C-alpha cells in the first residue's frame, strides 16, 4: 500500500562526488564479479609470473627471471584492465543500453568517464598489490624510483584506456570482444612482456618497440630491473599513444 503523496515530485541530482563514487563502486563490482574479466586481469598475469619465474622456458637474458618478468607482467596487468577489460565491458554496456540509460540520469558524461577511470585505477591497485606480493615471494629485488614507476603506470593506463574506449565506442560489442582478446594475446607475445624483444629480428623490433605495451614493459624494466633514472623515450611513446587514443575516442565514440 502506498500513502498519497509518495510519488510527489522532489527532483534533484545527488552531489557530484557521491554520484561519481557510487558509479565507480558499481563499475568495480561489475568487473570483479565477471569471471572472464578476472581471468584476464588476475589469473593470466599471476600464472605467467609464477610459471615463467619458476620454470626456465623462455631465455630472459642475464639476471634472475623474476626480475625480468615482474615489470613485463605489471605492464600486462595494466593492459588487461585499462584496455581489454574496459573495452569489453564498455562495449557491452553500449550494446545493452546501459550507457544510454545513464546518459539520461543526473550523472554527466564526464562524470561517468571519471568513474570508469577510477574503477580501472582501483582494479590496477589491487592487481599491482597482488603481483608485487607474489613477485617478492619469488625473490624479486626491484630498483629505481617508485614515482617514476607510478608515472609509467598512469601514462600506460591513459594510453590503453584511450584505445580501449575507441574500440568499445566504434565497433559492435561482439567485434570488440574478439578484437580486444586477440590484441591482448598478440601484445602478450610481441610486446616484450615475457619474451624479450631482442629475440625478434631487428626490423620487427623497431616496429614492436613503438607499441604501448612494449614502451610500458621496457620502461618499467629499465627502472625496476636496471635502476635507470627516467626512461624518456618510453614515456614519450606512451604519451603519444595516450593523446592519440583519448583524442580519437573522444571524437569517434558512439554512445548507442
Amino acid at each position, binding site marked *: 500500500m*502506498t*500513502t*498519497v*503523496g*509518495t*510519488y*510527489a*515530485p*522532489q*527532483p*534533484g*541530482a*545527488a552531489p557530484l562526488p*557521491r*554520484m561519481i563514487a*557510487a*558509479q565507480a563502486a*558499481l563499475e568495480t*563490482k*561489475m568487473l570483479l*564479479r*565477471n569471471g572472464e574479466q578476472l581471468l584476464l586481469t588476475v589469473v593470466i598475469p599471476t600464472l605467467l609470473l609464477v610459471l615463467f619465474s619458476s620454470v626456465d622456458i623462455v631465455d630472459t637474458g642475464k639476471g634472475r627471471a623474476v626480475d625480468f618478468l615482474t615489470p613485463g607482467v605489471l605492464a600486462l596487468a595494466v593492459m588487461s584492465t585499462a584496455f581489454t577489460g574496459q573495452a569489453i565491458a564498455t562495449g*557491452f*554496456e553500449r550494446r*545493452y*543500453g*546501459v550507457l*544510454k*540509460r545513464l*546518459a*539520461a*540520469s*543526473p*550523472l*554527466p558524461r564526464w562524470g561517468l568517464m571519471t568513474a570508469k577511470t577510477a574503477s580501472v585505477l582501483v582494479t590496477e591497485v589491487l592487481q599491482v598489490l597482488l603481483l608485487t606480493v607474489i613477485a617478492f615471494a619469488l625473490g624479486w629485488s626491484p630498483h629505481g624510483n617508485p614515482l617514476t614507476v607510478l608515472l609509467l603506470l598512469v601514462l600506460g593506463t591513459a594510453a590503453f584506456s584511450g584505445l580501449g574506449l575507441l574500440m568499445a565506442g566504434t565497433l559492435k560489442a561482439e567485434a570488440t570482444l574478439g578484437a580486444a582478446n586477440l590484441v591482448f594475446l598478440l601484445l602478450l607475445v610481441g610486446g616484450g612482456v615475457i619474451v624479450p624483444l631482442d629475440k625478434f629480428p631487428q626490423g620487427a623490433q623497431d616496429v614492436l618497440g613503438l607499441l604501448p605495451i612494449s614502451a610500458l614493459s621496457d620502461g618499467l624494466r629499465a627502472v625496476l630491473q636496471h635502476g635507470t633514472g627516467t626512461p624518456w623515450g618510453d614515456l614519450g611513446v606512451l604519451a603519444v599513444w595516450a593523446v592519440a587514443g583519448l583524442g580519437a575516442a573522444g571524437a569517434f565514440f558512439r554512445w*548507442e
Partner: protein
Amino acid sequence: MLPADFRTRRFQAVGGYLDSWAMRSETVVQVQALVKRYGSKTAVNGLDLTARAGVTAVLGPNGAGKTTTIETAEGYRRPDSGTVRVLGLDPVREAGALRPRIGVMLQSGGVYSGARAEEMLRHVAKLHARPLDVDALMERLGLGSCGRTSYRRLSGGQQQRLALAMAVVGRPELVFLDEPTAGLDPQARRATWDLVRDLRADGVSVILTTHYMDEAEQLADDVAVIDAGRVIAQGSPEQLCRGGAENTLRFTGRPGLDVGSLLKALPADCSAAELTPGAYRVAGKVDPQLLATVTSWCAQHGVMPEKISVERHTLEDVFLELTGKELRS
C-alpha cells in the same frame, strides 16, 4: 505507529495535490515542426505535439515515429529541424538542468547484465537527491522476490518493471515511458497501470508511448495519435471517441455484401463499412431501432449475422478511420 516522516509526507501529499491541480493546464512538453531523418528515411516529419501536465499517451503503430519523438524529448537525438522544449528547457543544450527532473524508461535494456535488480535500482536512487524508498518500490512493483537476481536472469516482465522503477525512483516531475507494458502479462500490466495512476494523482506528469488502445483509454488525459511521423489527431480519449455518443455495431457475415445497399437502409448519419473480408461495422447512433434495421436488412439479403455486437466507439475505430489501417500490424 506513524512513520517518523509522517508530517512531511502529509505536507507533500497536500502540496502535490494542489500542484497537480494547478498544473493541469501547464505545458510539460512542447514539440514544434519536428523533423528527424535517419539517412534517407524520414522518421518524424513536421510533428507538432503539446503535452500538458497529467498523462499523455502517444499512440501509433510500429514505425510511426513514437520512439524517435520521445527520444528527442529525452535529449538523445538532435532535431534535424523544429524545436523541442521539455519543462521549458532545451533537452540537448540544457540537458544538465533537465536530467535530474525527468525519469526515463527505455524500450529495452539499460541495465548492466551482471547487476542484481535491487543493486541497480539502489544505484539509480543514489544518483538522486531525495529518492523513493527502494524496498517499498520493489515491493510495489512485485520485484521483492527477485532483488538478488541478476538482470540477465530476470524474466522479460521483471526487466520491464525494473526499468519502470528506475524511471520513477528519483522522484521526477516528468516520466517518459516507452511502451511500458509491451509484452507484459495482464497482472504485471495492471500493476504498471496502477503505478501510472498513482504518479498522476501525486502530480507527476507521464508521457507514454503505446500501441495498445485500451492502455491509452484507461490512463491518458490526452492522446496524441501518430502516423507516418506526424500527429494526426490529439485530444482526450472522450473527445477522440466523440464522447461515446457514437457507437459501433459490428457483425460478421459472408464476405462481399453490398454495403451500399445496407447504407441506404440506415439513417442518414450512419456509416457502414466492410473492415476486413466478412467483418462489417456500422457506426452512428446505435439504438434498438438501428439494430432492428440491420438485422432485417440481413434477413432480406439472406445473411446470417454472426457475432453481432454493439460497442462504444473506441480509439481503435478512431485510428482506423484516420489512417485506414489497423494499429497492431
